[in-house]
């Protein structure tokens, strides 16, 4: 029904609030412990920017559950992007591989939104240059669909069917002052960098 409406931009509406996000992170942490058999060889790598915040939260939760410090790192995938030439060169974020490295480990990549899959493709390429993990898994807060590559998430906070006209914004208190996931029309939304930039083949590129 809504498809027939005039395309006046819709203000974003909230689909997850702070409590939801905390619950989702806790659930994913438990899933990791369960599926990774105690998470003994797990290395968490957060993908910039909001993936890093989420990884930090997962890390804290896993510490509570397992009583151990799971190695935590960050990954900047800028140099591996397939859309570098569409914009001026971007500033790099910090990549930090935990002291134990990733060789033979179960690396869990953490990101906020899974969309086209191109970010994760770039992250896999980056991992390839850094070491040889035993396996790589992916944890995301939101899977909004519209994959352009054969990539899937192992841990999903919320599946969120969206249209391409919509933008998904993840806000985290670490960088945005508040925890929330919003969905709104692309034209209306002030963009979430991850949600938008990870999708180079989108018809309208940000100016």
């Amino acid at each position, binding site marked *: 029904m809504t498809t027939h409406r005039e395309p006046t931009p819709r203000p974003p509406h909230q689909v997850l609030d702070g409590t939801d996000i905390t619950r989702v992170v806790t659930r994913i942490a438990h899933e990791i412990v369960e599926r990774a058999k105690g998470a003994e060889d797990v290395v968490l790598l957060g993908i910039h920017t909001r993936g890093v915040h989420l990884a930090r939260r997962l890390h804290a939760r896993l510490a509570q559950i397992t009583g151990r410090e799971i190695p935590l790192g960050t990954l900047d995938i800028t140099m*591996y992007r397939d859309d*570098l030439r569409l914009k001026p*060169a*971007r*500033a790099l974020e910090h990549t930090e591989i935990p002291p134990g490295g990733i060789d033979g480990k179960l690396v869990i990549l953490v990101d906020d939104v899974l969309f086209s899959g191109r970010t994760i493709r770039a992250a896999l390429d980056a991992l390839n240059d850094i070491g040889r993990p035993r396996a790589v898994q992916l944890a995301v807060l939101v899977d909004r669909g519209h994959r352009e590559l054969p990539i899937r998430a192992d841990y999903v906070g919320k599946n969120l069917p969206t249209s391409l006209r919509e933008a998904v914004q993840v806000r985290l208190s670490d960088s945005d002052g508040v925890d929330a996931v919003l969905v709104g029309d692309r034209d209306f939304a002030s963009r979430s960098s991850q949600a938008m930039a990870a999708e180079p083949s989108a018809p309208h590129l940000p100016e």
Partner: protein
Amino acid sequence: MKRHLVSTADLTRDDALLILDTAEELAQLSGRAVKKLPTLRGRTVVNLFFEDSTRTKTSFEVAEKRLSADVINFSAKGSSVSKGESLKDTALTLQAMGADAVVIRHHASGAPARLAQSDWLHGSVINAGDGTHEHPTQALLDAFTMRRHLNAGPGKDLAGRRVTIVGDVLHSRVARSNVHLLTTLGAEVTFVAPPTLLPIGIQNWPCEVSYDLDAVLPKTDALMMLRVQRERMNAAFFPTEREYSRRYGMNGIRMAQLPEHAIVMHPGPMVRGMEITAEVADSPRCTAVEQVANGVSIRMAVLYLLLGGATLADSPRTESVETAQ
């Protein structure tokens, strides 16, 4: 950032910090098993060296290869029309070969600026040292080295840090590039040299000038020794090598006058016994070798920032030519 790197005077503080921070990230690469990034795949970078310089050329080449660029080394000697192919024809040739960037070292001051302003080629021009004018990537790696020792951390500058640059300022492209960049980053620069080796008009540069090295040493956080070529002696810039090193050379006794935290830098190649004694050159406070390593990171950062994103080289230029006054 501009699309060329010809002079450090063109860099804003934000530009400079972006380069330093990017280099800091890229420096991690040297600790990895695979010291390579795919970023400049398909980009062609030409190293156009009109002057021999194994050090700088190698450093650029390593940086280019680590970023997966296609590297073409183009050695050229002499460029006057009477001696062979002109700079213009060389540039047109490189343009026809599809160069996305040209790293140029030239004995004539201003040759890279000329290349950048001309419509001879569309790619980025990176100055790898021109005559006695500038050597921007050297200044950047110097600043990078200083920041690591004196005010480490992303986004940090060199505010209030005192840098003393000693030697042949008159003929030094390193000194010129450094004075622009270091002052942009907030450092206080003092040149120390015999008056014959200081350019006319230096009193209007954003720096202090001293003829007395010993007086400046205790107030120095980073001491940079410039190479002094022996042949300058024949042009009466100073009487003898012995007198020069006595008055302006760095030795163990002078090193003891530096504050504890101060570092001794040298852009290389060092003339041991002239501007620096072996005792200083080999001391742990001397960062000469570290500077070489940092050079690769800085050059990677510059190449990435100029070529990694969208560039004008992807489309023909349409800029108009400037007119006089």
